[in-house]
């Protein structure tokens, strides 16, 4: 697509550099000539808990991978069927002494040398599930990984409780996050809009769209509690206090597997979230999550 072929706009600066600058600020379907208005988008508690969560979840994920590496296999049920893991990361030694990393999922085996099963730490090939750059601490050190994980777990829960309480109290939940029936019926249309990079403008941009509501609701109010509960289920002491926990998840090892899946659901959400932030206007989005203020284009786009 070339900019020159677009209809001339008296106010719009032209040329590829201007287009890139406009893209970084307002995203893929912005017309730089459209008038914009300021909109106060994110209250303070949303901004604080959002950035707190960025730090806390990063530590939780990376220390969690460190803990996973102490036994890099997942099972279903109450105990570990060592011969039949759902997933495992192992290493084989080649004839020349070098290592080959193999990841098994069900009956599939993948060569994941350098990434999973076997990777380099300070130039040395070592047997480890996830690679050094993905874990806290970087070397195999379960005790310290657990210290990080169980300290930040408290912060994760506290941050989540503060966010949820204020979201319910302020009406943020009811107004912005609670999915509507029309979010589900309108999903195909919404997906089509997203695929064509048509993001809401004008009045429609003042609230989350259907995909956003469904996604944020699922991530915050379903996967969030689920990852906490499955984490608690792995504690032998808490299982005596709440025997329904292992029952609910089909056993401690199932809970560990669900915990792992939740963590990677968060990671998947993170990547999609970043892509959407970039496509719909990197600077405008980041600024709104820092200052609360968001610029909305008035015309030219989809107006619900």
């Amino acid at each position, binding site marked *: 697509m070339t900019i020159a072929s677009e209809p001339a706009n008296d106010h719009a600066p032209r040329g590829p550099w201007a287009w890139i600058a406009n893209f970084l600020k307002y995203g893929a379907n912005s017309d730089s000539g459209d008038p914009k208005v300021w909109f106060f988008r994110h209250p303070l508690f949303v901004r604080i808990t959002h950035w707190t969560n960025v730090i806390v979840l990063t530590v939780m994920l990376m220390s969690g991978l460190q*803990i*996973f*590496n*102490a*036994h*890099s*296999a997942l*099972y279903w049920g*109450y*105990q*570990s069927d*060592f011969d039949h893991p759902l997933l*495992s*990361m*192992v*290493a*084989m*030694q*080649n*004839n*020349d002494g*070098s*290592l*080959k*990393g193999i990841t098994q999922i069900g009956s599939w085996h993948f*060569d994941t040398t350098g990434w999973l*099963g076997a990777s380099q*730490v*300070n130039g040395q090939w070592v*047997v*480890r*599930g996830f690679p050094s750059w993905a874990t*806290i*601490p*970087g*070397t*195999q*050190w*379960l*005790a*310290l990984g657990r*210290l*990080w994980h*169980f*300290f930040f*777990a*408290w912060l994760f829960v506290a941050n989540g409780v503060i966010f949820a309480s204020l979201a319910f109290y302020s009406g943020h939940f009811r107004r912005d996050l609670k999915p509507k029936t029309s979010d589900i019926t309108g999903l195909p249309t919404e997906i089509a809009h997203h695929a064509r990079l048509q993001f809401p403008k004008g009045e429609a941009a003042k609230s989350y769209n259907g995909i956003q509501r469904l996604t944020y609701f699922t991530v915050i109010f379903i996967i969030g509690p689920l990852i906490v509960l499955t984490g608690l289920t*792995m*504690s*032998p*002491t*808490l*299982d*005596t*206090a*709440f*025997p329904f926990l*292992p029952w609910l998840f089909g056993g*401690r*090892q199932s809970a560990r597997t669900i915990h792992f899946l939740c963590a990677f659901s968060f990671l998947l959400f993170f990547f999609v979230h970043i892509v959407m932030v970039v496509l719909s206007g990197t600077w405008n989005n980041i600024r709104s999550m820092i200052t609360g203020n968001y610029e909305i284009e008035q015309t030219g786009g989809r107006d619900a």
Partner: protein
Amino acid sequence: MRDGATRRGFLMRGFAGVATLALAGCDSISQQPWLDPLLRSAEALTKRVQRLFAGDHALAQEFTKADIAPSFRANGTLDPGTQEYRAHAQKNFTDWRITVGGLVEHPLSLSLDQLRKLPARTQITRHDCVEGWSCIGEWTGAQMAHILALAQPKEQARYVVFYCADPMTDSDGDGINDSNFYYESLDMVEATHPQTLLAYRLNGQDLDIAHGAPVRVRAERQLGYKQPKYVKDIVLVDSLEKIGGGKGGYWEDQGYNWWGGI
């Protein structure tokens, strides 16, 4: 497949285990002196909250015989290997004594026969390793609460320390561990819990060497490292500071949490 890879290469499980934790390496933030105490400050909170919900007596789930693992995984020391231990094993541990001392009114010295005559409990429970795996097995042993009642702990006793027969350090470099014997500790609540046993049978058989013969601790609300094998001497104390590295156990001295309920 990488070049040169052959199928004769042997499988090495990616289970790096807990033994390699000395590789502190280049994690600069992990070496900050303020970091460890800060992260560790959550442990007391975790313990307090877990105890609040679990109370002193909540029981671990017990399973049926159908749930027992076909092969119970053995971990940590698989054979203490000392001459003294080998001699005991050859005589089927007939001379093995378990002593109970320290802050008690009546110090005890029990043979295995005497231990087996004490009120026993059999329980099919889930063993959770700090590494992440679980195994279900049937344990039989004397209840620690009863043994402690016989010894009559003094009022100041706060912890029960278990001294074991397995050495963890190879001091002369001959490839055989010979010093720094394993030890662990539980507080009085966990030690007198009804499911806390000095266990001498696994799945109906006398304990084998890999699983801690002749006697190991079962503390079903705690992780595996809190349940020492090859138990010899039990000492009641009011503080853990002057024992071993001062943290209450072999793994605790290597940085693991004393609270093993999580």
